[in-house]
């Protein structure tokens, strides 16, 4: 389904990215020099001190903001405009209040011009799998934060994205809801062989879901450290992952990195 054979270029490579904003006559460097690779089927998290330009990074990666220098390669090529088959999810669920859960999910397909029975069924199946059976035809105004973010997740996954870009989508949720949603996300991402780049300030979230965690410095941002995470085969259950002995080692190490760069 995906180009993941040997020799195929990884879905996403960032090479020596830099981003500077023009604030009147002052140049504000946000990203100094950042390179990373997201391989097929991988979950990579990026953590950094607050205000280190994580959101800018995501916008540059998905083509909403042009980079000042360096390049973003999707399957080895720089795309014209938006890269295809990329799903994007933010802390704000950004559901449209005038659309039902179902038609929020089919929004992407509608924009591409086709919403028939098949597309609606696909959306319905996905909402069912995310535990929203019976809520498909309701308006989001009555939903809880967790339900809203589940609809947003369905809206992201229904377009079959090869790569998912997350900007702290679980940050506003209560602890239990967050863990359940993380587990659902990881399951749905791994089952379909998708790749996920997750930007977060939640170290425990990063360690529990990822194959690799990249720690950033404060502005202007560089990569400070990279951790390969191996928690054994407990990656599917968020609570078990958190109880693995290596979990705490990773969290402590990343915490120390952030503390130093925070001062």
């Amino acid at each position, binding site marked *: 389904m995906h180009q993941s054979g040997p020799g195929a270029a990884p879905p996403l490579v960032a090479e020596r990215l830099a981003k500077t904003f023009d604030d009147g006559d002052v140049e504000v460097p946000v990203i100094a020099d950042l390179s990373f690779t997201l391989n097929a089927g991988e979950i990579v998290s990026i953590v950094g001190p607050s205000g280190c330009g994580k959101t800018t990074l995501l916008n540059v990666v998905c083509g909403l903001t042009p980079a000042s220098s360096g390049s973003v390669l999707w399957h080895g090529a720089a795309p014209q405009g938006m890269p295809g088959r990329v799903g*994007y999810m933010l802390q704000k669920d950004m559901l449209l209040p005038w659309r039902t859960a179902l038609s929020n999910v089919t*929004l992407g397909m509608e924009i*591409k011009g086709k919403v028939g029975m098949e597309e609606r069924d696909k959306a319905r199946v996905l909402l069912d799998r995310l535990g929203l059976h019976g809520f498909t035809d309701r308006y989001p*105004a009555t939903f809880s934060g967790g339900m809203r973010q589940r609809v947003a997740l369905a809206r992201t996954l229904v377009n079959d994205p090869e790569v998912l870009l997350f900007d702290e989508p679980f940050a506003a949720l209560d602890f239990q809801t967050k863990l359940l949603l993380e587990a659902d996300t990881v399951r749905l991402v791994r089952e379909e062989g998708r790749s996920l780049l997750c930007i977060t300030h939640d170290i425990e979230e990063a360690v529990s879901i990822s194959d690799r965690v990249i720690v950033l410095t404060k502005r202007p941002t560089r990569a400070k450290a990279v951790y390969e995470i191996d928690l054994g085969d407990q990656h599917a259950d968020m609570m078990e992952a958190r109880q693995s002995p290596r979990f705490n080692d990773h969290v402590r190490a990343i915490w120390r990195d952030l503390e130093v760069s925070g001062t």
Partner: protein
Amino acid sequence: MVAGCQLALLAIFLGGWEYITSLDRQTAFLFGSPSAIFGFLKTMATDGSLARDTYVTALETLLGFLLGNLIGTLVGLSLWYSAFVSRVVQPFVVALGSIPIIALAPMVIIWFGTGLASKVAMSTLSVVVVALVTSYKGAMSVDPDQINLFRTLGARKSQIFRKLVVPSSLNDIFAGLKLTVGFALIGAIIGEFMSSSEGLGHAIFKAGSLYVIPKVFAALTATIALALVLTYLVGWLERLLKPWQPER
């Protein structure tokens, strides 16, 4: 509870008015009285002038309301398309908005005559700038993250406009509609004051110049009733067009 208090307040006001004006003839002449007003309303209803005047003013108001909001909203929303154009036209919009509509009335009569058209024009002019500003504000307050979401889904600008900007401006557009009901009515009444042969404004003006104060109040009562009905209709339309709003 609220309705009870409102009724009590109204009863006290009307009762006090009736009592004070019953004390001597001069006060009754100057301020009318609820019973005299009611009497005039009854005569106007039976001779058909109440229905006729209300119909004329309602028609002028409704046409001006629709035309002004249509033009204002279309222009206001489409300014979203170009930040450049909207910055160019901004001072002109402010300038137009600051013109007292009554100052335009003599010219409007010259341009559109003394019939229906001039009242509709006055009404439209009273509405259009407010509608433009509120709908433009609505279009510009769309969440930029939401626009980014549409862009990542591959939406063209026209799709963002239709599927995001227009529906999310509905709140502001309806706020504008509620506000402009009154403006449309004022525009129509001013038009009738300047030159007319029928309408509630005409009735108020004529009764006023003849010092028949209770009749002025009678026509005013019909005007208020008209405003209330139109405002209610807008609220009903809003509930119809925005079914996703949770019931309160």
